[in-house]
């Protein structure tokens, strides 16, 4: 039963979401035009299809949880008949959900900090932090990589590509503006 629930859970979530979005789609505010389909028809059709596939999958999974149903034809055929030397690098067994959560949190913080600290400072911190989170421990490599990497990005994108990167808020904008002056970026 537990296995069935585990298999079915993602489809139930998608089915519920499709239902919610369908209701929202029925409430689009527009003036109907005679002899023309409304702007809700296309999304509603898509949502009905999503719901249909989910229901089909839930029913088949409840009957036989390990059976994924019909699969992609050609690749499945080729992989099924592949020669013995078939695996590339084996999938690592160990998982690190903590690292994943930390990586996502740091990335969210980076996007938020870009507007506050400016590109140079925020990127240096982000690059250093992410490399460390990625289980690389040599600080003598991490620190110069973070600093030089951030400056290199700034130089390439601002000086060569003419992209206007965030300079941050006071007092951090002073750092960005000083670096830009030193690099000859106007």
């Amino acid at each position, binding site marked *: 039963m537990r296995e069935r629930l585990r298999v079915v859970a993602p489809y139930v979530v998608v089915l519920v979401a499709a239902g919610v979005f369908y209701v929202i789609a029925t409430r689009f505010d527009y*003036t109907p035009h005679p002899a023309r389909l409304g*702007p809700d028809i*296309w999304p509603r059709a898509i949502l009905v299809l999503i719901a249909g596939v989910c229901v089909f999958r839930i029913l088949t999974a409840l009957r036989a949880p390990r059976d*994924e149903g019909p699969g992609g034809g050609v690749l499945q055929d080729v992989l099924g008949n592949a020669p013995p*030397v078939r695996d590339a690098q084996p999938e690592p067994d160990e998982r690190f959900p903590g*690292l*994943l959560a930390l990586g996502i949190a740091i990335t969210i913080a980076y996007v938020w900090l870009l507007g506050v600290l400016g590109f140079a400072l925020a990127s240096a911190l982000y690059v250093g932090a992410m490399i460390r989170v990625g*289980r690389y421990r040599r600080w003598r490599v991490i620190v110069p990589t973070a600093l030089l990497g951030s400056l290199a990005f700034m130089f390439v994108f601002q000086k060569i590509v003419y*992209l206007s990167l965030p300079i941050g808020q006071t007092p951090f904008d002073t750092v960005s503006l000083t670096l830009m002056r030193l690099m000859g970026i106007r």
Partner: protein
Amino acid sequence: MLEVAQHLAGGFVDVVQPANALALAVGLVVGMLVAVLPGLTLVMGVVLALPFTYGMPITPSIILLTAMYISGTYGGAITSILFRIPGEPMDVPLLWDGWSMAHAGDPARALGWTLFAAATGGLITATVMVTLAVPFAKVALSFDSPEYFAIVLFGFTSVVTLGGGSLANALISLFVGMLLSTVGVDEIYGVDRFTFGVAMLRDGIGYLPVMVGAYGLGEVLVRLEQGFASAPLSGNAKVKTRIPTLAEAWKIRMTFLRASIVGVVCGIIPGAGATIASFVSYGIEGQYGKRRALLGTGIAEGIVAPQVSSTASVGGHMVPLLTLGIPGSGATAVILGAFLLHGVQPGPQIFQTQSALVYAIFASTFVAVLGMCALGYFAIRPLVKVLYLPEAIVSVFVIMFCLIGAYSEHNNLTDLWMIVVFGVVGYLFERFRFPIAPMVLGAILGPVAETAFQTSMISYANDWTVFFTRPVSGAVMLLSAIALLYPFYTRARRKRAVAVGRP
């Protein structure tokens, strides 16, 4: 034909202009580097290069991206053969015979066959592209919205049914992508759809954030959860290449022919990309090859078939992009984005309005194939050196490129939130075994499908049978139905085989 040759000659003159030649060279090197690095896919590479093209004229921009696309179909083969690490999913079939041949003590020969195959596939695809594009464009001029709708629908069904994995998951992924493309202000009624009062959603969700987030950040998050635990390099450190003789190649000419046809056809079908071409070609070799019983033991046919097909698919993909304005893959969607950013809409008229540009692209394909071969032959040693970079460092720079690439489109920090959201969505898709490619294709082609559908309904008084009664759209709709039913047929066949005790 003479006119095409004249235009093509003009294209070659354009390609050797310094800016275009530089773009070509950079595209080849970067495309190969991207393909060599596992975890950094060809599509991601093309996406990451897009912001660099904003300030460039259109011709070098498209040449840069096309060159990356071509060389990207070859670079990953090197690591498959030498280190048993496929740089791209399309290089997996090369493990079966390429790695086996290298492991048996002949890596130089395996690399030589790959290079020869990529060159052949590339030159064939360039020739086919030049030959097919003009007649294709002429036919496309007669297409109306039902034909466009049918073609896009065929792309949807092929990406769903040709790829591996569960059909239900692929369908859900596709529909999610299509639904994402409906967010924003509706074009016909000017109505907000799924915007929830958020200003940034009124502009819609472009396919770039979906692609960059799901392919780029999502993939890095998956690898981060595994602790960036790429296995240490092991294998053949010898990086010499021995090109096969013409006599050796002639012996397996039918493999070259079959693989070229498969590559071009898979390229033309929207949704079926280089990876599918590579696998299908290997499968066909297993069915019809003279030495099919020896496949997997390290024979040339097992290297040639997937490599020729994956490179040959590039030209196939460019044909619908240039003649119909329909991108059939992630990489061509990015190239379409570059066209649109420069104010050029690909389609049947482009051969009249921008013929110099089109033929410069054609000519650059020929030059790119030759450049790719030279690079693959002479620069293989420094290329494989990038594999020794720590994965954590490479990955964080990939994320940086993803974020800056997204930011550069509108110079707006809110776009970065989209990347983060789709990065997490991409991770969840990978985790729960929902393929990402259908979602991306749904996001790319969803608006094309909806517009074609709505226009057809307006033009033909809501008569939905128009999709089936017009000859071209009817035939394509039939193909879609066949493609959709194929997995059910193969499943029934497998079940029957199991029931009678056959493998």
